[in-house]
Protein backbone atom coordinates (compact mmCIF):
# COMPACT_ATOMS: atom_id res chain seq x y z
CA UNK A 1 0.00 0.00 0.00
CA UNK A 2 1.37 3.40 -1.02
CA UNK A 3 -0.09 6.56 0.50
CA UNK A 4 0.99 9.89 -0.96
CA UNK A 5 -0.20 13.02 0.81
CA UNK A 6 0.19 16.61 -0.34
CA UNK A 7 3.13 16.03 -2.70
CA UNK A 8 4.35 19.41 -3.90
CA UNK A 9 7.34 20.46 -5.96
CA UNK A 10 8.18 23.96 -7.09
CA UNK A 11 10.88 25.08 -9.49
CA UNK A 12 11.07 28.79 -8.75
CA UNK A 13 7.62 30.21 -9.47
CA UNK A 14 6.58 27.15 -11.47
CA UNK A 15 4.61 24.49 -9.62
CA UNK A 16 5.45 21.09 -11.10
CA UNK A 17 3.49 18.99 -8.61
CA UNK A 18 0.65 20.67 -6.80
CA UNK A 19 -0.62 19.21 -3.51
CA UNK A 20 -1.02 15.76 -5.02
CA UNK A 21 -2.54 13.01 -2.86
CA UNK A 22 -3.46 9.47 -3.85
CA UNK A 23 -3.35 5.86 -2.74
CA UNK A 24 -2.05 2.80 -4.54
CA UNK A 25 -3.53 -0.49 -3.41
CA UNK A 26 -1.86 -3.89 -3.41
CA UNK A 27 -3.07 -6.72 -5.63
CA UNK A 28 -3.72 -4.63 -8.73
CA UNK A 29 -1.64 -2.78 -11.29
CA UNK A 30 -2.16 0.94 -10.84
CA UNK A 31 -1.37 3.11 -13.83
CA UNK A 32 -0.03 6.62 -13.32
CA UNK A 33 -1.22 8.52 -16.32
CA UNK A 34 -0.70 12.00 -17.61
CA UNK A 35 0.51 13.85 -20.67
CA UNK A 36 4.21 14.60 -21.12
CA UNK A 37 5.28 17.23 -18.61
CA UNK A 38 2.35 16.54 -16.27
CA UNK A 39 4.73 15.82 -13.39
CA UNK A 40 4.69 12.00 -13.30
CA UNK A 41 8.45 11.54 -13.03
CA UNK A 42 8.79 14.39 -10.55
CA UNK A 43 6.03 12.82 -8.45
CA UNK A 44 7.78 9.45 -8.46
CA UNK A 45 11.07 11.08 -7.46
CA UNK A 46 9.34 12.88 -4.61
CA UNK A 47 7.78 9.58 -3.51
CA UNK A 48 11.22 7.95 -3.38
CA UNK A 49 12.95 10.83 -1.55
CA UNK A 50 15.13 11.56 -4.59
CA UNK A 51 13.64 15.00 -5.05
CA UNK A 52 13.25 17.44 -2.21
CA UNK A 53 9.76 18.93 -1.91
CA UNK A 54 6.60 19.12 0.17
CA UNK A 55 4.31 16.34 1.34
CA UNK A 56 5.19 12.76 2.10
CA UNK A 57 4.76 9.27 0.76
CA UNK A 58 4.44 6.24 2.98
CA UNK A 59 5.07 2.70 1.85
CA UNK A 60 3.12 0.51 4.27
CA UNK A 61 3.43 3.33 6.76
CA UNK A 62 7.11 4.23 6.30
CA UNK A 63 9.00 6.88 4.34
CA UNK A 64 11.33 5.42 1.70
CA UNK A 65 14.44 6.73 3.44
CA UNK A 66 13.39 5.06 6.70
CA UNK A 67 13.15 1.59 5.18
CA UNK A 68 16.34 -0.36 5.92
CA UNK A 69 17.64 -2.12 2.80
CA UNK A 70 14.77 -0.61 0.80
CA UNK A 71 15.31 -2.66 -2.38
CA UNK A 72 14.05 -5.70 -0.49
CA UNK A 73 10.69 -3.98 -0.01
CA UNK A 74 10.34 -1.40 -2.76
CA UNK A 75 11.71 -1.87 -6.25
CA UNK A 76 11.91 1.25 -8.38
CA UNK A 77 13.30 2.30 -11.73
CA UNK A 78 13.16 5.85 -12.99
CA UNK A 79 15.68 6.14 -15.81
CA UNK A 80 16.21 3.32 -18.27
CA UNK A 81 19.86 4.10 -19.06
CA UNK A 82 21.10 4.69 -15.51
CA UNK A 83 24.20 2.52 -15.66
CA UNK A 84 27.91 2.95 -16.36
CA UNK A 85 28.52 2.11 -20.03
CA UNK A 86 31.45 -0.21 -19.39
CA UNK A 87 30.28 -1.91 -16.19
CA UNK A 88 28.59 -5.15 -17.19
CA UNK A 89 24.91 -5.61 -16.48
CA UNK A 90 25.78 -8.36 -14.02
CA UNK A 91 28.29 -6.19 -12.16
CA UNK A 92 25.79 -3.32 -12.10
CA UNK A 93 23.29 -5.59 -10.40
CA UNK A 94 25.95 -7.07 -8.09
CA UNK A 95 26.83 -3.55 -6.96
CA UNK A 96 23.23 -2.68 -6.10
CA UNK A 97 22.74 -6.11 -4.54
CA UNK A 98 25.75 -5.55 -2.27
CA UNK A 99 24.10 -2.39 -0.93
CA UNK A 100 21.06 -4.36 0.21
CA UNK A 101 22.57 -7.64 1.33
CA UNK A 102 21.26 -9.55 -1.69
CA UNK A 103 23.22 -12.58 -2.88
CA UNK A 104 24.69 -13.13 -6.34
CA UNK A 105 22.34 -16.06 -7.01
CA UNK A 106 19.44 -13.62 -7.05
CA UNK A 107 21.34 -11.43 -9.55
CA UNK A 108 21.53 -14.33 -12.01
CA UNK A 109 17.88 -15.13 -11.32
CA UNK A 110 16.62 -11.65 -12.26
CA UNK A 111 18.91 -11.53 -15.29
CA UNK A 112 17.24 -14.72 -16.52
CA UNK A 113 13.81 -13.36 -15.63
CA UNK A 114 14.24 -10.26 -17.80
CA UNK A 115 15.98 -12.21 -20.57
CA UNK A 116 19.42 -10.59 -20.32
CA UNK A 117 21.48 -13.63 -19.24
CA UNK A 118 23.24 -13.85 -22.60
CA UNK A 119 24.49 -10.26 -22.53
CA UNK A 120 25.00 -9.94 -18.76
CA UNK A 121 28.79 -10.12 -18.95
CA UNK A 122 29.33 -7.64 -21.76
CA UNK A 123 29.43 -3.87 -21.78
CA UNK A 124 25.94 -2.40 -21.70
CA UNK A 125 27.12 0.58 -23.77
CA UNK A 126 25.37 -0.76 -26.87
CA UNK A 127 22.11 -1.73 -25.14
CA UNK A 128 18.97 -0.69 -26.99
CA UNK A 129 16.35 1.23 -25.06
CA UNK A 130 14.36 -1.98 -24.72
CA UNK A 131 17.35 -3.86 -23.26
CA UNK A 132 18.02 -0.95 -20.92
CA UNK A 133 14.42 -1.10 -19.75
CA UNK A 134 14.87 -4.80 -19.04
CA UNK A 135 18.00 -4.07 -17.01
CA UNK A 136 16.08 -1.39 -15.13
CA UNK A 137 13.33 -3.86 -14.36
CA UNK A 138 15.95 -6.35 -13.18
CA UNK A 139 17.20 -3.70 -10.71
CA UNK A 140 13.67 -3.13 -9.47
CA UNK A 141 13.02 -6.86 -9.01
CA UNK A 142 16.42 -7.57 -7.44
CA UNK A 143 15.21 -7.52 -3.84
CA UNK A 144 12.00 -9.43 -4.62
CA UNK A 145 10.06 -6.38 -3.36
CA UNK A 146 6.37 -6.26 -2.48
CA UNK A 147 6.04 -2.80 -4.01
CA UNK A 148 7.12 -1.68 -7.48
CA UNK A 149 7.38 1.90 -8.73
CA UNK A 150 8.23 2.07 -12.43
CA UNK A 151 8.52 5.19 -14.58
CA UNK A 152 7.55 4.55 -18.22
CA UNK A 153 8.88 0.96 -18.24
CA UNK A 154 7.24 0.20 -21.59
CA UNK A 155 9.02 3.05 -23.35
CA UNK A 156 11.25 1.55 -26.04
CA UNK A 157 9.85 -1.97 -25.81
CA UNK A 158 8.58 -3.65 -28.96
CA UNK A 159 5.05 -5.10 -29.00
CA UNK A 160 6.32 -8.45 -27.72
CA UNK A 161 8.21 -6.68 -24.98
CA UNK A 162 5.13 -4.72 -23.96
CA UNK A 163 3.09 -7.90 -23.78
CA UNK A 164 5.82 -9.55 -21.74
CA UNK A 165 5.96 -6.56 -19.37
CA UNK A 166 2.19 -6.59 -18.98
CA UNK A 167 2.25 -10.28 -18.10
CA UNK A 168 5.06 -9.75 -15.59
CA UNK A 169 3.30 -6.82 -13.90
CA UNK A 170 -0.07 -8.58 -13.85
CA UNK A 171 1.42 -11.70 -12.31
CA UNK A 172 3.30 -9.65 -9.70
CA UNK A 173 0.08 -7.85 -8.79
CA UNK A 174 -1.77 -11.17 -8.66
CA UNK A 175 0.72 -12.26 -6.00
CA UNK A 176 -0.60 -9.42 -3.85
CA UNK A 177 2.13 -6.91 -4.62
CA UNK A 178 1.60 -3.19 -5.09
CA UNK A 179 2.47 -2.13 -8.65
CA UNK A 180 2.57 1.55 -9.62
CA UNK A 181 3.57 2.20 -13.21
CA UNK A 182 3.55 5.43 -15.19
CA UNK A 183 2.88 6.09 -18.84
CA UNK A 184 1.77 8.90 -21.09
CA UNK A 185 0.06 6.42 -23.40
CA UNK A 186 -3.45 5.54 -22.35
CA UNK A 187 -3.80 2.59 -24.72
CA UNK A 188 -0.72 1.05 -23.12
CA UNK A 189 -2.14 1.73 -19.66
CA UNK A 190 -5.52 0.29 -20.59
CA UNK A 191 -3.82 -3.02 -21.37
CA UNK A 192 -1.71 -3.04 -18.25
CA UNK A 193 -3.58 -1.30 -15.45
CA UNK A 194 -6.61 -2.12 -13.36
CA UNK A 195 -6.68 1.21 -11.57
CA UNK A 196 -5.58 4.66 -12.63
CA UNK A 197 -4.20 7.79 -11.04
CA UNK A 198 -4.52 10.52 -13.67
CA UNK A 199 -2.72 13.84 -13.37
CA UNK A 200 -2.35 16.95 -15.48
CA UNK A 201 -0.17 19.98 -14.69
CA UNK A 202 0.82 18.35 -11.42
CA UNK A 203 -2.74 18.09 -10.16
CA UNK A 204 -4.89 15.05 -9.61
CA UNK A 205 -7.57 14.73 -12.29
CA UNK A 206 -9.03 11.37 -11.43
CA UNK A 207 -8.31 8.13 -9.65
CA UNK A 208 -10.10 4.81 -9.55
CA UNK A 209 -10.77 1.82 -11.78
CA UNK A 210 -9.89 2.22 -15.46
CA UNK A 211 -13.52 1.57 -16.48
CA UNK A 212 -14.82 4.33 -14.15
CA UNK A 213 -12.37 6.77 -15.64
CA UNK A 214 -13.44 5.92 -19.15
CA UNK A 215 -17.12 6.17 -18.18
CA UNK A 216 -16.69 9.51 -16.47
CA UNK A 217 -14.75 11.17 -19.22
CA UNK A 218 -16.31 9.67 -22.29
CA UNK A 219 -19.47 11.00 -23.74
CA UNK A 220 -21.54 8.65 -25.86
CA UNK A 221 -22.66 10.44 -29.00
CA UNK A 222 -24.86 9.63 -31.96
CA UNK A 223 -23.74 10.13 -35.53
CA UNK A 224 -26.57 11.00 -37.92
CA UNK A 225 -26.57 11.44 -41.68
CA UNK A 226 -29.60 13.02 -43.28
CA UNK A 227 -30.36 14.92 -46.50
CA UNK A 228 -32.18 17.38 -44.20
CA UNK A 229 -29.34 17.83 -41.75
CA UNK A 230 -29.88 21.46 -40.94
CA UNK A 231 -33.58 20.99 -40.22
CA UNK A 232 -32.83 17.97 -38.05
CA UNK A 233 -30.15 19.94 -36.21
CA UNK A 234 -32.67 22.63 -35.33
CA UNK A 235 -35.21 20.07 -34.15
CA UNK A 236 -32.59 18.31 -31.99
CA UNK A 237 -31.42 21.60 -30.53
CA UNK A 238 -34.98 22.56 -29.68
CA UNK A 239 -35.26 19.19 -27.94
CA UNK A 240 -32.26 20.02 -25.72
CA UNK A 241 -29.56 17.97 -27.44
CA UNK A 242 -26.14 19.33 -28.37
CA UNK A 243 -25.38 19.14 -32.07
CA UNK A 244 -22.10 19.52 -33.92
CA UNK A 245 -22.00 19.56 -37.71
CA UNK A 246 -19.09 17.78 -39.34
CA UNK A 247 -17.60 18.99 -42.60
CA UNK A 248 -19.16 16.11 -44.56
CA UNK A 249 -22.62 17.27 -43.47
CA UNK A 250 -23.21 14.60 -40.85
CA UNK A 251 -24.24 15.54 -37.31
CA UNK A 252 -22.75 14.47 -33.99
CA UNK A 253 -25.47 14.54 -31.35
CA UNK A 254 -24.86 14.56 -27.61
CA UNK A 255 -27.44 14.35 -24.84
CA UNK A 256 -29.80 12.08 -26.75
CA UNK A 257 -29.49 8.39 -27.59
CA UNK A 258 -29.96 6.83 -31.01
CA UNK A 259 -33.56 5.81 -30.26
CA UNK A 260 -34.54 9.34 -29.23
CA UNK A 261 -32.91 10.82 -32.36
CA UNK A 262 -34.62 8.25 -34.59
CA UNK A 263 -38.04 8.82 -33.01
CA UNK A 264 -37.71 12.59 -33.25
CA UNK A 265 -36.76 12.33 -36.93
CA UNK A 266 -39.67 9.97 -37.62
CA UNK A 267 -42.20 12.20 -35.90
CA UNK A 268 -41.20 15.13 -38.14
CA UNK A 269 -40.82 12.99 -41.25
CA UNK A 270 -37.08 13.63 -41.61
CA UNK A 271 -35.27 11.03 -43.73
CA UNK A 272 -32.21 9.42 -42.13
CA UNK A 273 -29.41 7.73 -44.07
CA UNK A 274 -27.38 6.68 -41.11
CA UNK A 275 -27.83 6.47 -37.34
CA UNK A 276 -24.83 5.22 -35.31
CA UNK A 277 -24.03 5.21 -31.60
CA UNK A 278 -20.40 6.23 -31.00
CA UNK A 279 -18.55 5.51 -27.75
CA UNK A 280 -15.41 7.56 -27.31
CA UNK A 281 -12.20 5.57 -27.17
CA UNK A 282 -9.89 5.51 -24.22
CA UNK A 283 -7.62 8.00 -26.00
CA UNK A 284 -10.52 10.37 -26.37
CA UNK A 285 -11.35 10.00 -22.68
CA UNK A 286 -7.75 10.80 -21.84
CA UNK A 287 -7.68 13.83 -24.10
CA UNK A 288 -10.97 15.06 -22.72
CA UNK A 289 -9.76 14.62 -19.13
CA UNK A 290 -6.34 16.15 -19.58
CA UNK A 291 -7.01 18.54 -22.46
CA UNK A 292 -7.15 21.58 -20.22
CA UNK A 293 -4.14 20.42 -18.26
CA UNK A 294 -1.72 19.74 -21.07
CA UNK A 295 1.64 21.32 -20.41
CA UNK A 296 3.16 21.55 -23.83
CA UNK A 297 0.80 22.00 -26.68
CA UNK A 298 1.75 22.61 -30.28
CA UNK A 299 -0.17 25.06 -32.41
CA UNK A 300 -2.62 23.27 -34.69
CA UNK A 301 -1.94 23.99 -38.33
CA UNK A 302 -5.33 22.79 -39.53
CA UNK A 303 -7.04 25.39 -41.65
CA UNK A 304 -4.53 28.07 -40.83
CA UNK A 305 -2.86 27.92 -44.22
CA UNK A 306 -5.60 30.07 -45.73
Amino acid at each position, binding site marked *: MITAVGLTKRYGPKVAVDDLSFEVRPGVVTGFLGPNGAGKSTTM*RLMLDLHRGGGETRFDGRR*YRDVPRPMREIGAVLEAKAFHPTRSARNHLLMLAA*ANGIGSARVDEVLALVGLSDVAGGRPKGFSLGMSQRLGLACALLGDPHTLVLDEPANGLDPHGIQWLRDVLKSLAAQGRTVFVSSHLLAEMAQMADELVVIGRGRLIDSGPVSDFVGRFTRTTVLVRSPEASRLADLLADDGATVDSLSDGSLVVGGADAAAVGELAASYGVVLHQLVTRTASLEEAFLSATGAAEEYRGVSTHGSAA
Partner: protein
Amino acid sequence: MSDALAFEAVRVRTIRSTYWLVGLALLLGALVAVALALATRDEPVDAALVAVGVTGGSQFSPLPFAAVLVGILGVFATGHEFRHGTVQPSLLALPRRSALVAAKLVVVALVGAGAAVAGLALNWVVTVVSRGAVVSVPDGEILLGYVVFVVLWGWLGAALALLFRNIPGALVVLLVVPLVVEPLISALSLVPAMDWLRDIVPYLPFSAGTSLVTVVDVGEATEAAGGTAALGRWAGGLVFAGAVGAVLAASWVLFERRDA
Protein backbone atom coordinates in the same frame (compact mmCIF):
# COMPACT_ATOMS: atom_id res chain seq x y z
CA MET B 1 27.35 2.21 6.56
CA SER B 2 28.64 -1.32 5.96
CA ASP B 3 26.09 -1.72 3.14
CA ALA B 4 27.35 1.50 1.58
CA LEU B 5 30.95 0.29 1.87
CA ALA B 6 30.04 -3.02 0.26
CA PHE B 7 28.38 -1.09 -2.57
CA GLU B 8 31.40 1.18 -3.06
CA ALA B 9 33.80 -1.74 -2.93
CA VAL B 10 31.98 -3.35 -5.87
CA ARG B 11 31.68 0.00 -7.66
CA VAL B 12 35.39 0.77 -7.58
CA ARG B 13 36.37 -2.79 -8.56
CA THR B 14 34.04 -2.98 -11.56
CA ILE B 15 35.22 -0.02 -13.61
CA ARG B 16 38.36 -0.06 -15.68
CA SER B 17 39.40 3.49 -14.82
CA THR B 18 40.32 2.36 -11.29
CA TYR B 19 42.95 0.04 -12.73
CA TRP B 20 44.44 2.33 -15.33
CA LEU B 21 44.56 5.32 -12.98
CA VAL B 22 46.36 3.35 -10.26
CA GLY B 23 48.54 1.61 -12.84
CA LEU B 24 49.52 4.88 -14.47
CA ALA B 25 50.28 6.45 -11.08
CA LEU B 26 52.63 3.58 -10.26
CA LEU B 27 54.25 3.57 -13.70
CA LEU B 28 54.89 7.31 -13.94
CA GLY B 29 56.25 7.53 -10.38
CA ALA B 30 58.58 4.59 -11.05
CA LEU B 31 59.83 6.20 -14.26
CA VAL B 32 60.88 9.30 -12.30
CA ALA B 33 62.61 7.11 -9.72
CA VAL B 34 64.44 5.09 -12.39
CA ALA B 35 65.53 8.18 -14.33
CA LEU B 36 66.89 9.83 -11.19
CA ALA B 37 68.62 6.66 -9.97
CA LEU B 38 70.26 5.99 -13.34
CA ALA B 39 71.44 9.59 -13.68
CA THR B 40 73.07 9.57 -10.26
CA ARG B 41 74.20 5.96 -10.01
CA ASP B 42 77.90 6.83 -10.19
CA GLU B 43 77.62 9.45 -7.47
CA PRO B 44 77.62 8.72 -3.74
CA VAL B 45 74.16 8.06 -2.29
CA ASP B 46 72.38 11.31 -1.43
CA ALA B 47 69.49 10.60 0.99
CA ALA B 48 67.55 13.66 -0.23
CA LEU B 49 67.83 12.59 -3.88
CA VAL B 50 66.76 9.08 -2.99
CA ALA B 51 63.71 10.58 -1.25
CA VAL B 52 62.93 12.67 -4.34
CA GLY B 53 62.95 9.49 -6.41
CA VAL B 54 60.94 7.44 -3.92
CA THR B 55 58.23 10.14 -3.80
CA GLY B 56 58.15 10.28 -7.60
CA GLY B 57 59.51 13.83 -7.70
CA SER B 58 56.28 15.14 -6.19
CA GLN B 59 57.83 18.16 -4.51
CA PHE B 60 58.91 19.64 -7.81
CA SER B 61 55.73 19.25 -9.82
CA PRO B 62 52.58 21.37 -9.56
CA LEU B 63 50.74 18.21 -10.63
CA PRO B 64 52.43 15.24 -8.93
CA PHE B 65 51.53 12.07 -10.84
CA ALA B 66 50.10 9.94 -8.04
CA ALA B 67 48.19 12.87 -6.55
CA VAL B 68 46.60 13.92 -9.84
CA LEU B 69 45.66 10.39 -10.87
CA VAL B 70 44.14 9.59 -7.48
CA GLY B 71 42.43 13.00 -7.70
CA ILE B 72 40.85 11.87 -10.98
CA LEU B 73 39.85 8.61 -9.29
CA GLY B 74 38.09 10.78 -6.70
CA VAL B 75 36.40 12.82 -9.44
CA PHE B 76 35.11 9.60 -10.99
CA ALA B 77 33.92 8.26 -7.61
CA THR B 78 31.26 10.95 -7.37
CA GLY B 79 31.21 12.36 -10.92
CA HIS B 80 30.25 9.09 -12.63
CA GLU B 81 27.04 9.06 -10.55
CA PHE B 82 25.93 12.22 -12.34
CA ARG B 83 27.59 11.57 -15.69
CA HIS B 84 25.79 8.24 -16.13
CA GLY B 85 22.67 8.94 -14.06
CA THR B 86 23.53 6.19 -11.60
CA VAL B 87 22.92 8.54 -8.68
CA GLN B 88 19.28 7.48 -8.78
CA PRO B 89 19.76 3.71 -8.54
CA SER B 90 22.55 4.35 -6.03
CA LEU B 91 20.26 6.41 -3.78
CA LEU B 92 17.39 3.99 -4.27
CA ALA B 93 19.71 1.31 -2.90
CA LEU B 94 21.17 3.62 -0.23
CA PRO B 95 18.72 6.41 0.55
CA ARG B 96 20.86 7.81 3.36
CA ARG B 97 22.94 10.17 1.31
CA SER B 98 25.56 10.79 3.98
CA ALA B 99 26.30 7.08 4.19
CA LEU B 100 26.92 7.02 0.44
CA VAL B 101 29.26 10.05 0.55
CA ALA B 102 31.11 8.72 3.59
CA ALA B 103 31.57 5.31 1.93
CA LYS B 104 32.93 6.97 -1.21
CA LEU B 105 35.45 8.93 0.85
CA VAL B 106 36.55 5.81 2.71
CA VAL B 107 37.02 3.86 -0.52
CA VAL B 108 38.85 6.73 -2.25
CA ALA B 109 41.10 7.00 0.81
CA LEU B 110 41.80 3.27 0.87
CA VAL B 111 42.56 3.05 -2.85
CA GLY B 112 44.55 6.31 -2.72
CA ALA B 113 46.56 5.25 0.31
CA GLY B 114 47.09 1.81 -1.23
CA ALA B 115 48.34 3.36 -4.46
CA ALA B 116 50.62 5.73 -2.52
CA VAL B 117 52.15 3.00 -0.34
CA ALA B 118 52.56 0.68 -3.32
CA GLY B 119 54.15 3.54 -5.27
CA LEU B 120 56.62 4.31 -2.48
CA ALA B 121 57.58 0.64 -2.25
CA LEU B 122 57.89 0.27 -6.02
CA ASN B 123 59.93 3.46 -6.37
CA TRP B 124 62.31 2.34 -3.64
CA VAL B 125 62.72 -1.07 -5.27
CA VAL B 126 63.40 0.37 -8.75
CA THR B 127 65.84 2.86 -7.20
CA VAL B 128 67.74 0.00 -5.57
CA VAL B 129 67.68 -2.06 -8.76
CA SER B 130 68.73 0.87 -10.94
CA ARG B 131 71.61 1.84 -8.67
CA GLY B 132 72.54 -1.75 -8.09
CA ALA B 133 72.88 -1.03 -4.37
CA VAL B 134 70.60 -0.92 -1.36
CA VAL B 135 69.71 2.62 -0.31
CA SER B 136 68.08 3.68 2.95
CA VAL B 137 64.35 4.20 3.11
CA PRO B 138 63.39 7.90 3.50
CA ASP B 139 62.17 9.22 6.86
CA GLY B 140 58.78 8.02 8.10
CA GLU B 141 57.62 11.64 8.11
CA ILE B 142 58.24 11.93 4.37
CA LEU B 143 56.45 8.65 3.64
CA LEU B 144 53.46 9.56 5.81
CA GLY B 145 53.26 13.05 4.29
CA TYR B 146 53.19 11.50 0.80
CA VAL B 147 50.33 9.15 1.68
CA VAL B 148 48.31 11.95 3.31
CA PHE B 149 48.98 14.17 0.29
CA VAL B 150 47.69 11.61 -2.20
CA VAL B 151 44.59 10.86 -0.12
CA LEU B 152 43.76 14.57 0.20
CA TRP B 153 43.93 14.94 -3.59
CA GLY B 154 41.54 12.01 -3.95
CA TRP B 155 39.09 13.56 -1.51
CA LEU B 156 39.37 16.92 -3.24
CA GLY B 157 38.51 15.32 -6.59
CA ALA B 158 35.49 13.57 -5.07
CA ALA B 159 34.33 16.78 -3.36
CA LEU B 160 34.68 18.90 -6.51
CA ALA B 161 32.69 16.48 -8.69
CA LEU B 162 30.03 16.21 -5.97
CA LEU B 163 29.86 20.00 -5.85
CA PHE B 164 29.68 20.57 -9.62
CA ARG B 165 27.80 17.33 -10.33
CA ASN B 166 29.91 17.00 -13.44
CA ILE B 167 33.30 15.61 -14.34
CA PRO B 168 34.80 18.26 -16.66
CA GLY B 169 34.19 21.10 -14.19
CA ALA B 170 35.88 19.18 -11.41
CA LEU B 171 38.85 18.28 -13.62
CA VAL B 172 39.30 21.89 -14.72
CA VAL B 173 39.52 23.11 -11.13
CA LEU B 174 41.74 20.20 -10.14
CA LEU B 175 44.22 20.91 -12.96
CA VAL B 176 43.97 24.63 -13.69
CA VAL B 177 44.25 25.97 -10.15
CA PRO B 178 47.58 24.28 -9.29
CA LEU B 179 48.98 24.58 -12.81
CA VAL B 180 47.90 28.10 -13.75
CA VAL B 181 46.24 30.09 -10.99
CA GLU B 182 48.59 29.49 -8.07
CA PRO B 183 51.84 29.88 -10.09
CA LEU B 184 50.42 33.11 -11.51
CA ILE B 185 49.65 34.51 -8.05
CA SER B 186 53.13 33.50 -6.86
CA ALA B 187 54.71 35.22 -9.83
CA LEU B 188 52.63 38.38 -9.41
CA SER B 189 53.67 38.57 -5.76
CA LEU B 190 57.20 39.30 -7.02
CA VAL B 191 55.98 42.55 -8.61
CA PRO B 192 56.74 45.28 -6.05
CA ALA B 193 53.34 46.96 -6.51
CA MET B 194 51.65 43.66 -5.73
CA ASP B 195 53.87 42.54 -2.90
CA TRP B 196 50.85 42.32 -0.59
CA LEU B 197 50.19 39.01 -2.35
CA ARG B 198 53.27 37.63 -0.62
CA ASP B 199 51.25 37.25 2.59
CA ILE B 200 48.80 35.04 0.72
CA VAL B 201 51.21 32.89 -1.24
CA PRO B 202 52.09 30.43 1.54
CA TYR B 203 48.39 29.75 2.04
CA LEU B 204 47.55 28.93 -1.58
CA PRO B 205 46.03 25.47 -1.04
CA PHE B 206 47.89 23.39 -3.62
CA SER B 207 51.23 25.08 -2.97
CA ALA B 208 50.74 24.61 0.76
CA GLY B 209 49.78 20.97 0.18
CA THR B 210 53.05 20.32 -1.61
CA SER B 211 54.77 20.92 1.76
CA LEU B 212 53.54 17.44 2.65
CA VAL B 213 55.95 15.95 0.11
CA THR B 214 58.91 18.20 0.86
CA VAL B 215 62.15 16.21 0.78
CA VAL B 216 64.59 19.01 0.02
CA ASP B 217 64.35 22.29 1.94
CA VAL B 218 64.29 24.98 -0.74
CA GLY B 219 63.12 27.75 1.62
CA GLU B 220 66.39 29.65 1.58
CA ALA B 221 66.76 29.39 -2.17
CA THR B 222 63.20 30.59 -2.65
CA GLU B 223 63.70 33.57 -0.38
CA ALA B 224 66.98 34.39 -2.03
CA ALA B 225 65.10 34.55 -5.33
CA GLY B 226 62.64 37.00 -3.76
CA GLY B 227 59.87 34.42 -3.21
CA THR B 228 58.04 33.49 -0.05
CA ALA B 229 59.12 30.39 1.84
CA ALA B 230 56.52 27.66 2.06
CA LEU B 231 54.95 26.60 5.33
CA GLY B 232 56.35 23.59 7.17
CA ARG B 233 55.28 20.05 6.21
CA TRP B 234 52.39 19.68 8.62
CA ALA B 235 51.36 23.35 8.74
CA GLY B 236 51.16 23.38 4.93
CA GLY B 237 49.34 20.06 5.01
CA LEU B 238 46.82 21.53 7.43
CA VAL B 239 46.16 24.48 5.09
CA PHE B 240 45.58 22.08 2.16
CA ALA B 241 43.41 19.81 4.32
CA GLY B 242 41.40 22.85 5.41
CA ALA B 243 40.73 23.80 1.79
CA VAL B 244 39.76 20.21 0.94
CA GLY B 245 37.54 20.11 4.03
CA ALA B 246 35.79 23.36 3.05
CA VAL B 247 34.98 22.12 -0.48
CA LEU B 248 33.91 18.78 0.93
CA ALA B 249 31.62 20.35 3.54
CA ALA B 250 29.96 22.57 0.94
CA SER B 251 29.46 19.71 -1.51
CA TRP B 252 28.17 17.36 1.20
CA VAL B 253 25.59 19.87 2.46
CA LEU B 254 24.43 20.60 -1.10
CA PHE B 255 24.22 16.89 -1.96
CA GLU B 256 21.92 16.40 1.05
CA ARG B 257 19.68 19.26 -0.03
CA ARG B 258 19.60 19.00 -3.80
CA ASP B 259 17.33 16.94 -5.99
CA ALA B 260 19.03 13.76 -7.13
